[in-house]
């Protein structure tokens, strides 16, 4: 426990257990009264050793392991991994499969943005919006369950294609859900941009200029709300996005309200894209043949998760087990912006600014930060950590 310092500043810990966080992380916020003067972040509480575990499982089993890096954006993780492995193997999934991948990805984006809307409203103390947006989200969950067989962790992908096809019954169910949701989304856009009390919590709060966004490396809707026109679906189209492009959704205000508006406008883009896609699905098979041993090589895979750019690096040594898989999730890019932006705001704005980047702490950190009792800190790389653990294990130094 830290005591108050002599200058009336004290640190409020947000996390690892805190009602504002849905997953554990640690923000050390230094406040002077109610104004924040400093903030640091510490991650690693959700580290599960997934990348190391991937080295002990074959390519097929890893598809499902990486699907579980995140529960909200599970499909996009699996898609990024599958696209990477297919690229290494020189296999192209059939067009219908790619289109269905895009369909499920956009459905996932809708569910993720609606989830986020509810959670951000809850952080602001607006529980009613939370309840109603999650009620409406059930429509998408039911559609996904009917299409893929599960509400979360859809497992729609296999290496080489997809598992689930779209028939007329599915198509009708999806269109019906979209019609209902479109009306509701207009209502939520109205609430978010005109409700006086809600605007007091979001307008002008956490403003990030375009320059700041570029310097801090923000991605996804967080960056697009500050005028940075970055969207992997358009900058580097993957799966079927070259054939079914989306429109860029960009706002310039850069504050929390802009982040709300960007995400709700992205919902409309997703509705439009799904409708177009369902009318223009290419005919054909939904999976291709994949070799069990993937040829040697390295590749990267970049996709647009609901939170921003998701980056996979895959390295194969020619066997049926990967040599290295590295995942870089969008929240890691966006967290820097949180700790920089909260300074100068009130303590009550901290959860809101954090919610504004749509944090998903299931991404693990890659470095280990050691704090000695005398206050000195150093950062370790993966190699150093590995060497230390082997030393401890075998009782000798390498």
């Amino acid at each position: 426990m830290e005591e108050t310092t002599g200058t009336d500043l004290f640190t409020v810990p947000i996390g690892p257990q805190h009602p504002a966080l849905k997953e554990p992380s640690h923000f050390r916020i230094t406040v002077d009264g109610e104004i924040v003067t400093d903030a640091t972040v510490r991650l690693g509480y959700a580290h599960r050793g997934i990348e190391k575990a991937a080295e002990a499982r074959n390519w097929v089993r890893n598809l499902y392991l990486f699907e579980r890096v995140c529960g909200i954006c599970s499909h996009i993780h699996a898609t990024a991994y599958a696209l990477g492995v297919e690229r290494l193997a020189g296999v192209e999934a059939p067009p219908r499969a790619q289109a269905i991948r895009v369909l499920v990805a956009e459905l996932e984006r809708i569910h993720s943005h609606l989830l986020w809307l509810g959670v951000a409203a809850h952080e602001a103390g607006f529980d009613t919006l939370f309840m109603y947006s999650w009620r409406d989200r059930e429509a998408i969950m039911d559609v996904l369950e009917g299409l893929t067989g599960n509400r979360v962790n859809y497992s729609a992908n296999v290496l080489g294609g997809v598992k689930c096809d779209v028939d007329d019954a599915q198509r009708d169910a999806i269109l019906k859900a979209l019609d209902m949701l479109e009306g509701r989304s207009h209502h939520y856009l109205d609430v978010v941009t005109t409700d006086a009390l809600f605007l007091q919590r979001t307008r002008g709060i956490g403003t990030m200029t375009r320059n700041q966004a570029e310097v801090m490396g923000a991605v996804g809707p967080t960056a697009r709300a500050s005028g940075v026109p970055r969207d992997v679906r358009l900058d580097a189209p993957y799966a079927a996005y070259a054939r079914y492009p989306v429109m860029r959704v960009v706002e310039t205000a850069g504050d929390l309200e802009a982040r709300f508006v960007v995400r709700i406008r992205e919902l409309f883009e997703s509705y439009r894209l799904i409708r177009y896609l369902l009318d223009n699905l290419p005919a054909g098979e939904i999976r291709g043949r994949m070799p069990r041993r993937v040829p040697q090589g390295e590749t990267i895979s970049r996709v647009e998760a609901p939170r921003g750019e998701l980056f996979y690096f895959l390295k194969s040594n020619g066997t049926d087990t990967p040599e290295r898989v590295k995942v870089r999730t969008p929240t890691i890019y966006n967290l820097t912006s949180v700790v920089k932006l909260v300074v100068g705001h009130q303590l009550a704005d901290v959860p809101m600014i954090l919610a504004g980047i749509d944090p998903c702490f299931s991404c693990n950190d890659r470095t280990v930060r050691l704090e000695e009792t005398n206050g000195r800190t150093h950062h370790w790389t993966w190699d150093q950590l590995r060497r230390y653990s082997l030393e401890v294990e075998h009782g000798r130094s390498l």
Partner: protein
Amino acid sequence: MDAASSFAAILFFPSGLFLLAASLAYEWVDRKLLAQFQNRIGPRWFQPLADVVKLLAKEEIIPDGVNRWLFVGLPIVGLAAPLTAALYIPLAGLAPVFSFPGDLIVAIYLLSVLTMSIGLAGSNALGRFSLVGATRTLTQLFSYEAPFLLALLGPALIAGSWQISTIIEVSAQHWFILTQPLGFVVALIGLMGKLELPPFDAPEAETEVVAGALTEYSGRGLALFRLGKGVELVLGLTLVAAFYLGGVGGPLAFFVKTLALLLIVAGLQAVLARLRIDQTVGLWWRFGVMLVLVQWALTWLLQGGWR
């Protein structure tokens, strides 16, 4: 009143056990209404009772370094004060048990003792969230208390007395909500501020300061504070109903009027987002005070006060 009936009044009816039972019932109605507004099922009828029973059975953990007497004693004071205030307030549609000139001020003061106890308890508990929450509780106390008091004094002005039983005799004939609508609005919303209901729940904002001043409390202390808040809900609704909605007319009218007010309070909780503490203070010291002063000016004018 002789000693025996005074004790009965304090321990059983209308204060004491009856009031505690009513506070649990009203808390349930509030939560159930809020759930209905949010299109979901709320808790079952015995939930508040179950919460209290569970909390009373839990171990009380006293943090290191706090003043034990304050930590244990403040919840007791915090519950005792509203229970005492109930003696001057027309509960259950009956006349107040005790009455003397100026008891309106005493009752309102006793109702504030709970908020002050919560603030003190938070400061005493020394945890970081407790300190921030205690600061917010006391800041909020200073913002809504004056407009709330002035709004309740509006009918007192017309009745020409600061004694509750006199005021309700006048308000029984004359529904003050019709002649002093602004005062009614300020009184009702001031009640929401007093009870730290959304949108004024910044002092106990779960997503910011965990539980505010009561973060370090568990077990018996928390149960007593929660009961105190429930009692204040009933008393506050009774006061506003008695003053503005036509006095007391017996138990049936009491329940109907207070539950109607509770419906409005629950509706306001549902549609409004939380205000930050500085926005709460700004709102009250600008609009709250302005509205109530305008109301007073109008009342004074209509009374022919310029003569």
